[in-house]
């Protein structure tokens, strides 16, 4: 029998890792995959026809109301933070304990990269499992609807990393299948694939037309965070968000739909974090996108530059003539 190929070894590794969830973190080398997936082709993707049909129970078991009678059982709170093209999940893992009362979702198109993040989250959850619940005080205690509510309001009982998950999808096509209008408070677009050729600009995850979809799922007042090490792409993303809704056709708005938010210089994040208010939040999140994303770490190691853009979504403009 020939020795197992690299590919077979990877498959076997991944399979055992998934069937015996352990507390050991998965090894990246067994989840290698081609760098780019074509966002225009049909991948074998599963997605709900409408957001309300999505079964989130495998993703956030600690945030599902077990007594719900509707199918699928709904989340006890909506997902509000999306990491689009999350890659190996560094940002999610960093944000999970920092934003314990929010639900975060990573979206990634590459199968094996998604599996890696899934296994990583399972391992982290197992490592940080909450202490077993104290035995029930009396047998007569009814399963009150309060239980789930108290679970979500007191994070220690839930355990760490229960508030993050990942799923495989093509966000350029299926964002509205997962999120409803104005659902999100934060969207992260970290180190997107640059697609340098002009002909391929439509393949970019930030484009004039995709900004419309980000604006749709983002609530007024919500934020978009972009970061890249490619200066030209940084400017491009800035122009797309900054220029969005600012149209020269007479009826367009003076100001666009996205307002640029000031960001701390590299190294200044900590100062901002201590200031409180919006600056503290922006400082913390900018530090995470710079330092906690896999790509951010890589660029940091190589001494490269990182171009950050943060945008706040405004209210939709008034209808023309109203």
């Amino acid at each position, binding site marked *: 029998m020939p020795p197992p190929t690299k*590919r077979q070894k*990877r498959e076997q590794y991944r399979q055992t890792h998934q069937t015996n969830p352990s507390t050991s973190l998965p090894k990246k080398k067994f989840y*290698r*995959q*081609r760098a780019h*997936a*074509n*966002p*225009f*082709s*049909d*991948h*074998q993707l599963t997605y709900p*026809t*409408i957001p309300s049909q999505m079964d989130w129970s495998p993703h956030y078991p600690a945030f599902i109301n077990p007594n719900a009678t509707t199918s699928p059982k709904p989340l006890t709170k909506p997902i509000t933070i999306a990491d689009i093209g999350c890659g190996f999940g560094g940002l999610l893992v960093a944000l999970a304990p920092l934003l314990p009362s929010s639900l975060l979702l990573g979206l990634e*198109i*590459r*199968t*094996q990269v998604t599996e890696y993040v899934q296994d990583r989250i399972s391992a982290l959850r197992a490592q940080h499992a909450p202490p077993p619940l104290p035995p029930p005080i009396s047998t007569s205690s009814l399963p009150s609807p309060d239980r789930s509510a108290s679970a979500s309001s007191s994070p220690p009982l839930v355990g760490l990393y229960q508030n993050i998950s990942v799923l495989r999808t*093509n966000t*350029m*096509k*299926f964002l*509205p*299948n997962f999120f409803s*209008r104005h659902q999100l408070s934060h969207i992260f677009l970290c180190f997107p694939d640059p697609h340098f050729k*002009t*002909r391929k*600009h*439509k393949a970019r995850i930030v*484009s*004039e*037309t*995709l*900004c*419309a*979809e980000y*604006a*749709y799922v983002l609530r007024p007042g919500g934020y978009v965070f972009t970061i890249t090490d490619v200066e030209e792409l940084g400017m491009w993303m800035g122009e797309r968000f900054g*220029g*969005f*809704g600012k*149209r*020269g*056709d*007479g*009826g*367009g708005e003076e100001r666009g*739909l996205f307002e640029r938010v000031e960001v701390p210089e590299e190294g200044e994040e900590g100062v901002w974090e201590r200031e409180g208010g919006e600056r503290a939040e922006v400082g913390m999140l900018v530090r995470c996108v710079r330092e906690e994303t896999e790509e951010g770490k890589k660029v940091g190691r190589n001494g490269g530059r990182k171009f950050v853009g943060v945008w706040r979504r405004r209210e*939709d*403009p008034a*209808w*023309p*003539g*109203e």
Partner: protein
Amino acid sequence: MPHPYQCLLYCSRPGQAEAGILVASSGPYIHTFNVHNGTYLSTWPSGQETGKSSKDDATAELGSGVTAETETHQEDSQRPRKRQKLSPPRDDSGSSTEIVVNGEDEDGQNRRLKPAISPPVIKLAGTSNGHHVVAVTGEDKCIRVFELLEDGCLIQLSERVMPKRPCAVVLTPDESTLLCADKFGDVHSLPLMGQTHEPILCSADDKQGLENGSKEPPQRDFVPSASSLTVHTKGNREALRQQQKIKNPKAEKKSLNFDHQLLLGHVSLLTDVTCVSISSSNKMRNYILSSDRDEHIRVSRGIPQAHIIEGYCLGHTEFISKLCIPPAHPHLLISGGGDESLFLWDWHPGKIRQKLDLRRPVEDLKRRHGLEPASAKPTIRDQEAAVSGDLEDKFAISNIRVHDWSSSKVNKLETGIIVSCEGIPALFHFRIDTEAGKIEHMGTYGPLEGNVIDVAVIQDQGAVVYSMDTVHEAFSTTTVATDQVQKERFPIGVMKITENARSNMCMQQHQHPQLITAMEQCIQRQSFIPENLTAKGKSMRDLLYGLESLRKRGGEEQNVRDD
């Protein structure tokens, strides 16, 4: 073998029902007919009948009078300046008519006529006043706007080549702007009466520009001060162009050589687009609805806020192919696609009202067809599909048209819906039950002689004209019918919308021999059909049955592989 009519459009000027014109394209040609008396009116491009008249007397009558007039108009109209990549360049600026008149020998004539023929028309649209027709040819991505004269002549006003292949065109509610949805997922707007700028040099820059066109900062729409009725004379056209030059000093540097604007985009192939105005607390609000291959119907605001997405209508489980908003019920949307059901929506909140499965009526139809002794076996299926198995019985909705209807006996004013499906020889008739807020199936008309290709409602004459596939067998999109069968078939049929004994709307076969004969003779006489558009060519099938190819094949993972 005559080419079937792949697109139909009815144009009538308000209050002039008897002069209503049916615009019908067969392959690359657009013919016009008077529906009322069933006479042939004209053909675009006009050169072809003249080209043929030397050897075929019958065509002399076909083109008589018409050709001469068209020729004069063509002198005035703007010359197409740029040819698409696919067809060899025209070697002079003259129309094909002139080439023929110049007295080429038979061979030379043919050689020079062929390049003048554009690719097949894939979509037709018209203004509600019946004055303008818009035709889209797919392969060269070209949108042509015509003035439709009262005598049926089509005068080309403009020819604009889009950056990507258009899939649907529609007029905005005020009819001043065209929306074009393309294969790349973008919707562009262009002024209906817009023109290409001069000079047009087909340089490397231009080609590059076509690719980048949609990424450019939007230009301001040019609003011509000349009215649509005046722009086909030479003097006005020149004035218009001069004016345009001044208004758009920088426009000439732009790569797409006409005013256009990117309104919105999906990362998916767009399949249809429609516009609607509804009043909300006494204000009219415009919306654009766009549908794609990935089961989405997007609701955006109208121009100039098309970048704001208001919502989605989600529920289809296969590609969407048609969107239809009944003018009498602008809050409702009827959609259809590859999931074999008609969907009725309250599109603004994005709520499904009803999902009406068409598989049963289609099965009934097939059974009926199977019982008919002389007809083809209903089990002859698309062979390619049969190999892949699962597609065997799938079909896609290809047309959804609405009509108004009022009973002559009781006080009833209703909206009817006529639906056809790819590869199915039938019309399905429905009504909107406004009280229940539902669609009700009123009847299935079939099996007809051939698969229904397109449907046009002749509202002011209470009729429906449908075109049929004369080439393939009924119920098949691949099996070519025998020559004998092909010869006996009519390319179109006419139905009358009437009422039954219970005062409900219904349809009845309508004998209209003049129109049917005129339309049949017209395609018999069509002198030149490109080789690839003959029955055996795949392009004819793609033209008539392009929807099925939108279905996702499932199967293996594409483009994502372990390295």
